């Protein structure tokens, strides 16, 4: 059983005890512990259950590669599932809970799966649960889903907030080990702007644990000095607890900074997502040790040798009293020496036939038993390591001899962390000695300039020994700086004694000729329960591509993304296919390197900042007066103003009637206003609009249509001629930016020799529609310019003053009422609105919203972009031929409208629709025709485009598009309801209110 040693521990501060709970049980650790080291310190070996077989699992690793120790952390608004104990720094009051078991960690029903494991090989679910059909969804799937899934689902809104940060640097160095420090130092000395990030809280990586000596001093001292030196360089920024998450095209990189996970504080951002643009990126991300594949290698107590070393040295935690180190390389001996020094019993099993390197000799000299040519036949124990059966590595594991032990340290060799190198297309090459994939500098990821922008350094580049790491990192750092444009020269590289070592022996099966029974208990992917035999089965069934095997067995698809299992799995697959490992290749590495929170990705964009709300100058008044908001693009417009005691429908009805009978006000500020000016403006306007706009007299207004080059109606609005070479174009609310961009595009990319300038002045003005029989009265009451019928007839505009406001007044109407649209400077919009309300009170002035606006325009048969149009409708469909110039040779959309389908006489055309019973036609209803088409679908002959209850006429009114509609006036056709029944409606004229236009022309 694991326990805390009395002395030592580089990271912990014994004077600062920290209390936390695990599965409700109170426990203690120290400042500087990780949750993992604290649990081990308390003798808690069992920390979770595996994904598929619910096998008891313990801590395997000491870093982000940990596959087993995933926890539910915290509660309620700060609850987080799947947190790695090995990367969770301990703090007072931390609450942790193991996952994926029921009813308890110790007694888990799911363990049944383990008993049934022989029935649940890779891909078993593809071959089973086929009958009866409905059972998959209703019986099998729910069971499978419940047993899967690891952590609990959060239930609450996140109490924390997050932010982004944008940084541009010459050189980004990822990884704060000695390689990263050396690379950053070299780049910094060369004069480059450098950002160095380290995922953990500590600098120096493994070197201090591994006992390296650099520049004649212990690694820890060198690290401290180098960090200090970097901190003092003005052109170098260093940042711990910041992980390099992903590398993207053109030197873009993501870093994930965890600000408060180690010391919760809701007032600070929890995570900060760094979006970095780097000239060059140096990946000094180190290497990860590989497990060995022997039976029972997933029992709690079986760990990576390097992790055992870390826990003893960094946290003064012993994973056990009797440790068996099983290795295929010299590095394993470091662990043996470390644990022996800590006063634990240790035996080394070296799979190699002989081991005479310095470390091995040192171990022997220290009195450690070293047995060469040996491997592990199996590890046995009830939920933890109790006995290790030792066998001849080269044989099939028969007649093994037992050793009592409570911890097994696996040293299977090292794999460089090549994730960041690979994210953006960097390729790998296989290195025989060491048996790992390393970055292939010939096939590096290329940036915008076509040159390599990622350089790997140190262990991440396949250099595993201190001296080589430092040189490699120095070169990478200096090169990165030079390529990023730095002109200085780096100081000297740090040096270390060359460590002699004997070649490692790749061991993919232990023992080499292990039986099926043994191989079926040898785990490759701990979290997803993928065993050697699963990969072999995949190969046998023809899943030869590594991607197939990965997907079929789920190897490497767990939350550790195969950090421990990839190479071992590949090797087994290669063996099963009788191919070389490099031939089999690797799966694609995808960001992020290690999971990052959704909150961090969303950043500041939540709640009020989720999206911008565009506000008109009268926004506050609307908000204070019952506005029922309707989002229109990023604008918010009042749908209706709901008064106390009325519902939204009543409000709409009230607004329509008040406007028709006396006086209504509409905040029309959101309508787009574009100024088009220049000697060629007329010619340009004629291309933009289907109408002839060049002939519009100064002072007059004209309703215009805009089509896309594809012929479809895209926007409409009133155009006013301001002067000789200036037009003012009104667009729809959503249209201002879109149409402005549309105009600029044509001017810049097609007719760049035309002399035309366009400006978007939408927000310069607050615009109010003053509508109703008393519209003129209220303006006359405010005084100022003459707005009489004679001075300002229908479809004209004038500039002047309304009351004390300088204004531009357009005599136009979208409601069929006497109507003035008045534009005043936005800074005075609210004051103008208030003035109108005050002056209008005697007329019962009534502000109205978008719904009343829609109803009134529909009563007049006016079309609405987005209702009558949907991107497939041409003006001709809407009976707007009068607005399409016959004289013009060309305008955007003209050619498109000549295509067969556009000139088809059977196109659906706009008509009014009147239900026989006066009811309101269902929104979106279709008119049915005779029979069905070749696909058995009911034939249709039209559809409803707008349908409302008209408060004015007190019945339903509607418009729609109907095949040959205008020729079928008076005909009754059937429209469908979703329940399968039909409504009869008569085809009528779209204009159902004041057809002669008498009301608007007074």
């Amino acid at each position, binding site marked *: 059983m694991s326990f805390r040693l009395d002395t030592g521990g580089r990271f912990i501060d014994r004077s600062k005890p920290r209390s936390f709970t695990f599965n409700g049980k109170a426990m203690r650790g120290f400042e500087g512990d990780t949750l993992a080291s604290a649990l081990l310190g308390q003798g808690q070996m069992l920390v979770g259950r595996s994904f598929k077989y619910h096998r008891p699992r313990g801590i395997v690793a000491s870093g982000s590669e940990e596959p087993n120790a995933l926890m539910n952390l915290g509660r309620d608004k700060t609850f987080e599932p799947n947190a790695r104990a090995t990367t969770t720094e301990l703090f007072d009051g931390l609450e942790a809970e193991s996952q994926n078991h029921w009813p308890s960690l110790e007694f888990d029903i799911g363990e049944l799966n383990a008993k049934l494991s022989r029935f649940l090989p890779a891909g078993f679910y593809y071959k089973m649960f086929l009958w009866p059909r409905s059972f998959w969804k209703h019986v099998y799937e729910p069971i499978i889903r419940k047993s899967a899934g690891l952590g609990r689902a959060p239930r609450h809104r996140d109490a924390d907030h997050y*932010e*982004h*940060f*944008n*940084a*541009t640097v010459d050189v980004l160095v990822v990884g704060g080990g000695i390689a990263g420090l050396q690379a950053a130092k070299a780049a910094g000395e060369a004069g480059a*702007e450098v*950002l160095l990030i380290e995922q953990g809280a500590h600098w120096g990586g493994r070197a201090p644990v591994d006992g390296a000596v650099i520049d004649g001093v212990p690694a820890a001292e060198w690290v401290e000095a180098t960090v200090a030196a970097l901190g003092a360089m003005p052109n170098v*920024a260093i*940042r711990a607890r910041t992980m390099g998450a992903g590398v993207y095209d053109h030197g873009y990189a993501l870093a994930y900074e965890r600000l408060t996970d180690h010391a919760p*504080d809701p*007032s*600070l*951002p929890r995570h*900060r997502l760094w*979006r970095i*643009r780097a000239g060059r990126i140096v990946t000094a991300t180190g290497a990860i040790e590989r497990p060995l594949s022997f039976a029972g290698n997933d029992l709690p107590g079986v760990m990576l040798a390097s992790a055992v070393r870390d826990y003893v040295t960094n946290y003064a935690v012993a994973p056990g009293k009797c440790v068996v180190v099983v290795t295929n390389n010299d590095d394993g001996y470091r662990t043996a020496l470390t644990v022996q020094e800590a006063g634990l019993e240790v035996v080394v099993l070296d799979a190699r036939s002989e081991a005479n390197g310095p470390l091995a000799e040192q171990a022997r000299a220290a009195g450690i038993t070293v047995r060469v040519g040996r491997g592990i036949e199996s590890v046995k124990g009830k939920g933890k390591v109790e006995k290790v059966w030792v066998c001849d590595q080269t044989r099939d594991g028969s007649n093994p001899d037992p050793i009592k032990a409570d911890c097994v340290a696996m040293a299977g060799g090292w794999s460089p962390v090549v994730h960041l190198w690979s994210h953006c297309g960097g390729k790998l090459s296989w290195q025989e000695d060491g048996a790992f994939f390393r970055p292939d500098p010939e096939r590096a990821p290329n940036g915008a300039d076509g040159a390599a922008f990622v350089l790997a350094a140190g262990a991440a580049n396949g250099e595993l020994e201190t001296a080589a790491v430092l040189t490699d990192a120095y070169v990478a750092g200096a090169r990165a700086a030079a390529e990023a444009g730095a002109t200085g020269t780096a100081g000297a590289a740090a040096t270390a004694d060359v460590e002699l070592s004997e070649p490692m022996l790749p061991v993919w099966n232990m023992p080499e000729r292990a039986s099926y029974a043994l191989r079926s208990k040898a785990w490759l992917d701990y979290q997803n329960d993928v065993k050697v035999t699963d990969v072999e089965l995949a190969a046998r069934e023809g899943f030869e591509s590594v991607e197939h095997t990965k997907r079929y067995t789920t190897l490497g698809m767990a939350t550790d993304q195969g950090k421990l299992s990839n190479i071992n799995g590949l090797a087994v697959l290669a063996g099963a296919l009788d191919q070389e490992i490099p031939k089999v290749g690797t799966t694609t590495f995808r960001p992020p390197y290690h999971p990052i929170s959704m909150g961090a990705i969303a950043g*500041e*964009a939540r709640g*009020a*900042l989720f*999206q*911008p*709300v*565009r*506000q*008109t*100058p009268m926004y506050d008044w609307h908000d204070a007066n019952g506005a029922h908001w309707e989002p229109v693009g*990023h*604008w918010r417009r009042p749908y209706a103003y709901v008064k106390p005691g009325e519902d939204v429908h009543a409000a709409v009805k009230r607004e329509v009637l008040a406007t028709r009978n006396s006086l209504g006000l509409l905040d029309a500020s959101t309508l787009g206003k574009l*100024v088009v*000016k*220049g*000697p060629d403006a007329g010619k340009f306007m004629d291309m933009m609009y289907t109408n002839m706009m060049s002939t519009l007299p100064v002072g007059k207004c004209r309703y215009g249509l805009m089509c896309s080059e594809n012929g479809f109606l895209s926007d409409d609005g009133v155009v006013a001629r301001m002067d000789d070479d200036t037009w003012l174009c009104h667009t729809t609310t959503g249209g201002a930016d879109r149409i402005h961009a549309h105009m600029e595009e044509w001017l810049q990319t097609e007719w760049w020799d035309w*002399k035309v*300038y*366009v*400006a978007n*002045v*939408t*927000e*310069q*003005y607050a615009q109010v529609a003053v509508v109703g029989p008393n519209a003129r009265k209220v303006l006359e009451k405010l005084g100022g310019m003459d707005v009489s019928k004679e001075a300002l007839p229908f479809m004209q505009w004038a500039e002047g003053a309304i009351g*004390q*406001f*300088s204004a531009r007044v357009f005599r136009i109407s979208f409601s069929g009422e006497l109507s003035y649209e008045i534009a005043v*400077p*936005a*800074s*005075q919009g*609210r*004051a*103008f609105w208030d*003035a109108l309300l005050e002056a209008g009170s005697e007329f019962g002035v009534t502000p109205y919203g978008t719904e009343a606006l829609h109803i009134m325009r529909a009563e007049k048969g006016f079309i609405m972009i987005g209702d009558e149009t949907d991107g497939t409708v041409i003006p001709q469909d809407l009976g707007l031929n009068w607005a399409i110039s016959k004289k013009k040779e060309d305008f955007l959309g003209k050619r498109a409208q000549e295509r067969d389908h556009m000139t088809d006489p059977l196109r659906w055309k706009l008509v009014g629709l009147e239900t026989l019973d006066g009811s309101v036609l269902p929104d979106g209803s279709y008119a049915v025709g005779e029979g069905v088409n070749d696909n058995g679908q009911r034939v249709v002959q039209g559809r409803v485009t707008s349908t409302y209850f008209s408060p004015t006429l007190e019945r339903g009114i509607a418009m729609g598009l109907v095949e040959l509609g205008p020729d079928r006036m008076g005909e009754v056709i059937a429209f469908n309801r979703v329940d399968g029944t039909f409504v009869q409606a008569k085809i009528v004229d779209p204009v159902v209110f004041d057809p002669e236009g008498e009301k608007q022309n007074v």
Partner: protein
Amino acid sequence: MSEAVSAVQGASASGFVDVAEAGLVGMVTIRGDLGDSDFAHAVWSVTHCGLPKKRGIAAGESDQLLWMSPDELLLVCAHEEAEARVQALSAALSGQHHLVVNVSDARAVFRVSGSGSAVREAMAKVTPADLRPRILGVGEVRRTRMAQVPAAICFDGEDQATIVCFRSVGTYVFDLLVRSSKPGSEVGHF
């Protein structure tokens, strides 16, 4: 003339930098041929500013000219002067192909001030623009994004930046800057 109000009525807030709306500022968009000496002359005659160089600012006694694009300038003046400037510029530029419009009320203007690199850091949280002093120096205009909306950024000095955005999103930009400068969220990168 009634009392004019700016987008967020002069709101201000203090975090690790101070954020304040600058109130009403006169702004006039001028489009024309920046390479044409007649144009330059006409603009000078009204603003007493020479033409700014690319991404630059030219200052006269009371007016400033900001480079917006190869054929566009933004004249910054007193709010109550803007309409007069429009008239004067239109007159001075008549005969040349040009466009002059008052956009004073279409904009919101913010001042972000603080010590050291605090100002750049608060803004780096919400703009992708490269804010390193050697890239975006004092007196240079950078048109870019503030989170999800367009904005123009200019450092008046190391300790103060001016941000211009559309009036309708004034509240959004103000809230963004307040959030970005929350005490305790200093980055310490620049």
